Every structure is written in structure tokens, then in C-alpha cells.
């Protein structure tokens, strides 16, 4: 038997509101989601909650790369999280939730996790 899970999408903002290499926070079903624009069509979304500080701030981190892998560095203690997997580079076993994100007709949409 195959169970298919319907993913719901929430529009959060125009793509033009998020410059390349930056992030914004959005409220999606009461959850705080950090949406990142890397470059071109590359978008990622993680939970906004930084497990290393306990503050909801990941969207305000600096976006760049570590060895070519896109990462965001939390603004509080500078721990880095991979944008594709949510994995923390500084602490083994620590990670944050990954959300799906897409751009439709110039609008950024976040999918249920």
C-alpha cells in the first residue's frame, strides 16, 4: 500500500523581498520558519529556532558556504547549519528541521515539513 501525504504550501512573500545570500523569518501554521535565498533559483528553508542558543533567530544569520556546502551561521554563537540537511557543523548529532520551499510566479511558498 502506498500512503501519499498531501503537502500544503503557504505563500510567504515576494521573491524580490529576499536578496541573494540572505534570509527572512515567516510564520507558517504558527511555526517559525527561516527562508533563505542563496543565489539564482536556490532557496532553502529551516526551522528558525537555533538549538544552540534557544533563540528563534536563524533567519538573521549570515548565509555563505563551508567547503562549497551552503550554510547559515546562527547570529548568537555562530554555529553553522547546512541549508540542505539542517545538520549543525559544530555539534555532532544536532540539527534543525528542514522545510520545502519553492518560488511560484515570483512568490515564495513554504511547504509543510
Amino acid at each position, binding site marked *: 500500500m502506498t500512503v501519499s501525504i498531501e503537502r500544503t504550501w503557504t505563500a510567504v512573500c515576494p521573491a524580490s523581498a529576499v536578496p541573494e545570500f540572505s534570509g527572512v523569518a515567516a510564520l507558517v501554521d504558527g511555526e517559525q520558519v527561516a527562508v533563505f535565498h542563496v543565489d539564482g533559483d536556490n532557496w532553502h528553508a529551516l526551522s528558525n529556532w537555533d538549538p544552540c542558543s534557544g533563540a528563534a533567530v536563524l533567519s538573521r544569520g549570515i548565509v555563505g558556504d563551508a567547503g562549497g556546502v551552503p*550554510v547559515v551561521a546562527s547570529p548568537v554563537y555562530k554555529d553553522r547549519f547546512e541549508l540542505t540537511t539542517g545538520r549543525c557543523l559544530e555539534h555532532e548529532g544536532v540539527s534543525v528541521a528542514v522545510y520545502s520551499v519553492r518560488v511560484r510566479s515570483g512568490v515564495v511558498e513554504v511547504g509543510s515539513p
Partner: protein
Amino acid sequence: MRTLVVAGHGMVAHRLVEAVRAADTAGRWRIVVLAEEPRPAYDRVALTSYVDTWDPAALALPGSDYAGDDAVELRLGDAVTSVDRAAKTVTTASGYTQSYDALVLATGSRPFVPPVPGRDLPGVFVYRTIEDLDAIREAASRPGRGRRSAMVIGGGLLGLEAAKALRDMGLSPHVVEMAPRLMPLQVDEGGGALLRRLIAQLDVTVHTGTSTDVIEADGSRLLARLGNGTELDVDLVVFSAGVRPRDDLARESGLEVGGRGGVLVDSACRTSDPAVYAIGECAAVEDRVYGIVAPGYAMAEVVAAGLTGGSATFPLPDTSTKLKLMGVDVASFGDAHAATEGALEVAVNDAVTGTYKKLVVTDDGKTLLGGVLVGDAAEYNTLRALVGRPLPAEPGALLAPAGGAASVGVEALPDEAQICSCNGVSKGALTRAITSDGCDSVGKLKACTRAGTSCGSCVPMLTKLLNACGVEQSKALCEHFGQSRAEMFEIIRATRMTTFSEVITRYGTGTGCAVCKPAVASILATLGNGHILGGEQVTLQDTNDKFLANIQRNGSYSVVPRIPGGEITPEKLLVIAQVAVDFGLYTKITGGQRIDLFGATVDQLPEIWRRLVDAGFESGHAYGKALRTVKSCVGSTWCRYGVQDSVALAIELELRYRGLRSPHKIKSGVSGCARECAEARSKDFGVIATEHGWNLYVGGNGGATPRHAELLLSDVDTETLIRTIDRFLMFYVRTADRLQRTAPWIEEMEGGLDHLRAVIVDDSLGICEDLDAAMAKHVEGYTDEWRGVLEDPEKLARFSSFVNAPGTPDPSISFREERAQKVPVMLGVPEVRR
């Protein structure tokens, strides 16, 4: 293929596996490791540091899970329970049986718990594994009344480490030692007496020369009675009374054991059965057991060589130790107790500085045999390396406070001198790694030679060796730029590039990171490239700069308006007070003579700043690597001793340099007379009034490594003073490293303060005109960053918590009240502790 079975996976077993894998190029051995503990081998030597993070990952030994190595099988959490030597098999607790061609016992030691009545009570612990510490932590954090206390039985190395861990957990520790002094094995009487005094100053109560007779339960607490009649009422007890080798498997399978326990082995670590070896703390090599890791590593190397076709025998081990206990240095090396026939002792006991140093030398006073250092062990590595060698100076001279052994320097050591005793690495081996194998950093030396990877005490020597070999340590900014910050500054200045994208495309790789982006943003700002949030620059800034406010632990921000020189009118005080009341902010006078308003959400920042800017305030740059404050004392206007108007000068300086972006923050102070009430000498540049003008001091700071500023100019007039400070700051901004304050910048400069004076006072490089012009440009170009935001709707739009719900504040931020003001409530408990 043959099977090597290793019983136990501690530090020594791990070293064995690594050494066999490295030497077994022919692929002769398959290795099965059977481990009792639930996790791969970790750094037990550093166990006490677990208390800092409570993160087992921080103790991990690199590669100890053998991921990706098919020749090694690691079975965790399943202890070996028996050995059948006839069948050549071992069986584990879970009933798993494994045959072997060679068996290595590496089962370590167990803590020795003397038969004190009450030793089985709840609340009584030992100190050897991560699980032991977790259990102690749980007991220590159970709610109770008042400050919690603990007793450590045993005042040796481990007992004192346990006391440190307990103190770091917030308990008041008592240490009970049977011998008449602490660390009886390592230090002598003189050292022990000083150690006791230093440790006692650190809120650890020491009881020596007494036993523990009984421990009794007393409600939820424990009551311990000591042999000398003392009764201790404590929350928990930790036994740290030595260790005993875990030789049960050997005993039960009929192998010979040593006189005082331990699996008896020869100098090649072979037991009485040629297929069975023993290494590490469980082994008695020629009937001697070792309780530290270095001899264990040597045994692992010996067995690895034997199994892979080489041969080696156990070298005479170095049992030197150095540790830093609660900030107290203790070291002993070589023949510390002068056991050698005819040995002489030379000791210096300095009660004033709290140091005790003893050297043990041969009867002719020419050769070093060993020694003890307490209170200050800076010379440990050099002295230890000199053991068995002719002394470079009289023993007395080596112990003299200034010019002591530290000044002998690494150059003076012979090639055979051991630099890293944990891993047995000599100076010669390190020099070869540097000069022939291209190791140009401490990291590479560690990877290449293993030096510095265990206790870490030799790392400073590695740096010195690199310097002595003329290797420049890399100053590369980060993985994206090979250049140093100073080089980047020159590149950007010369090419006049104005965006990070251009800079990284032409001079870097990848897309940048949280290190290079703010560094380049700062350089662009220093060179005057418009508002720091203009265009692409906004994506380069740290969050503090991005929101022109300081982030706090709960994600809220603080607001610090500039109050030049700390002088403020009552009317302006009223404005700050009213803003704080209206927005519900916590207020505090900072250490920089101004007022900080805490607890603003991102959405509130523009509204708060609109009110402040309208009342004539401007950004205080508390968030930026920039000029912070110029503190002042009241000076000659009011003070009966003042000789110049320190307030007026402080205000002038603060307004002149405000907004100047720099490698690190810059602080200043101006005092009206030599009494120095503004603490100017603890600042990057400080000014002190004299009868005839001003004295200028540079290169001071507070912080973690406090330093007094040094005199650069004396008795100069205001114009000369300001011109010199202009040049000082511009030269610093151009040539310092990222996050390097002025003190280390001057220290690293070749020629130091004299060179600095030559450049900015005598213009020895001919750049002063340029520096003057750059500062003039900065002063002219200054505009208030907050006003710039308030005037620009696009920049303002970024100040919202949620892009799809402007005006909704972050719901995870909440506050409670303390001393009649609001303070943050911590919501999500961090998963990772620091």
C-alpha cells in the same frame, strides 16, 4: 586473514587499532574490538572538561568509530566475560563468541573504593567515565537548600580534578587525603604545602592526614565521619582513591599477574601465553603498572609493531605530569623525589607570588634529573626536555623569577629532547616535520606527528618551534580567502572595489561565510562606501550591524544611544527614561559611561530610534566593530585636582572618531590628572592630562587579557595629540588582523612601540599625509547610521520579525520581572550547552 581481538576500547586500545591499521599494509589482520562502554573510545584524560559542555562529542577521539574501515569491527556495550585460551576464543556478556589468533587485553583500570562503611549508599560515586559524571551531575542538580557541598575521598591528581568538576557544577567541595599532603605521588612536601594553600583559596576545603571512617545516610544527605573527629554534612561523595588494574580476565584464564595486580607482561607486552598481550593501565610491564596514558600509548605501539612484523620493546616511560587545577599550575617531572643516588635539590619557595620550584640535579650540579613546579609551571616543557642533559645555566639561575628556564628557549634544546611526552615526539622529529614535510601550522604538526593531541600542554612549544624554524603562521582570513585582513584592506583600497561579490570573484573562492563577509563589509565601510545597510552590504553584516542593535540571549535587542564622554543633560536623561517607560525596556548604566536599554524586539527598534533621533541622540555603535566610548572624568571644571578639561577633550575625540569601522572595537578615555579616574590606561588609546598638556598612551585593554596602555607621547598640545591619534587609528585600521585589538597588534609589529612611533610621529614610511587625509575623509563623511535607516523605507521594511506578518512580534520572546524591571524568560532550553 588472521583475527586480532581487542578486549576494551579505551584510549590505549584505540591507539593500538590505529597503529596496526597504519602498519598493516599487507592487510594481514582483521580486528574485532569488544568494548564494555556504550560509546567508542574517548578522551578520558580530558574527562573533567566534560563539565564545561556536557557534550560527549567534545571528548570524541578522531576516527575512533572506524567508519568506513571494513577491516575493523567495533562492538559496543558488550564486555568480554571469559577467555578460553585452549580454544582461542572469547565470550561476551551477551553470549557472543569470537575466535582469535591474537588477543590484546586493554581493559584499563577500575577506581579503587576502599572498604569504608557506607560506600554503597546512594549519592556515592566514582570518577572515571562519562556515565559517572552524568550521574554526579544529576545528583548535584537535585533541588536542595542553600549551597550544595560534596566530599572527594583522595587528594591525588584525580581527586583534585574531581573537586574542580564539582566546584564548576556549583558545589562546595571538601577533599580528604590520607597522606600528609595533596598529590603525594607527584609533589614533595614544600610543593604540597603551597598547593594546599592555593587550593584552599579556591573554596575547596582540604583535610589531609586523615582517613574516612564511615559514611551514613542522613535524610537526603550524607554524613561522613573522618578519622580526626571531623564530621562532614554533604550532598554527595566521590571516591578517587586510586585505581586498580582490571586483570580479572587474565586471572580467570590462568595468566600470570603482577605482584601488585595487573596482567604480567614482558617488555614486548606479551603475557605468559604467546597469543595474548596486555597494554595500557591493565598491564604490569615487568611487574610495574602505569596510571597515565603515555606509557599505554608506548605499549600499543610496541604490540602493533610486533603484530605487523616489526619488533620493538617498551621504552622507559616518562611519568611527568602537568596540570592546571582551578587555575593553579602543578607539574612534576623526572626524578621529582630525588631518589637518584647523590641527587641534590635546589628549591625556591616564594610565598609572596605563591610559587614553589624545585630542581633535582646530579651531585656535581651539572645534569638535570627532575623537579617540581607549583603555582607557575611556564617552564615545565623546557625543563622536562632538559632532563638527563647538561644544564644550560646554574640551577639557581634557572629558578630565578625573570629570565628563568623559559628564557632558555626552544632553540637551546638538543634534537633528542622530548617535546610531547604524551606521544613521545622529539624536537628532531618535529623539526623534520616542519622543514621536510611542510607542516606549517600547529594543526598540521598535530596531524602529522600526533604531538599535542593528548594533554595539549606542549602546544605552546609547537608554536615556538614553528617560529624558530621561520615558519610564518597562516593569516588567511578563512577558507574563502588566502589573504590576511591587512592584505584585503590594501587590495580593496587599491582596486577601489565596492562590493563583496566583486572582491570574492576576483580574489577569493566560493560564496563567503560569517568570517569573511563581515570583515570585508567593515573594510568597505572604513573606506567610505555609503550606508552599511545599503545594497548588497546588508547581507554581509553580522546581525548586530544588520539591525544596528546588540542581539541578546533570547533574540531581543538592546539600544545604546551615544552619550559622548558620558556627559548628558537632565532633559536628555528624561527622554531616555520616557522611551524606556513607553516601550517597557530594561535599563542599565553600562561600563562605558552610558545607558543601555534592553529587551526591544526587531519591530520596535525603528520606533524607539525615531523618538531618540528626534530628541538629538544618535547611534552609539555598541553593535559595531567601531569606536565605542571615550570615557572621561569630571576634570578641571569641577575637580579640585584637575589640570585640564578632560570632559571637553573626551567629547571632541568621541565625536571625531564615531562611526569609524575597525578590525575590532576601539575604546578610549581621558583623565584630568594623574589620579586617572577615567581608567584611560586600560584603553586602546588613553589620554592623561599633565601640567603642560597631554600624555598619550596606546595599546591598552580590559577584557580577558588585560593590558595597560604604554606611553607614546608626553606633554603634547591638543593639536599634536589629535593628529597623532588620527594616524594611530588609521594605521591600525589598515594593518591589523581581523578581531585583533590594538595591544596584540602593537605586540606583533616588528619593532613594537618604537616602530609605531617612528611611523606615526616621525613619518618613517612617508605615509602620514595619506593617513591624515583618510581620517579627514572619515570625519567629513560621518553620518548617523540610525538616521539613515529612518529616512529610507526600504531599510525600514527589514525591521519586522516575520516577513508575512509585519507587526507580529516574535512569540518566543517573553519576559518576567526582577528587581522591578523586566528580564528575559528563557523559552526553548538550548540542546547544546556551552
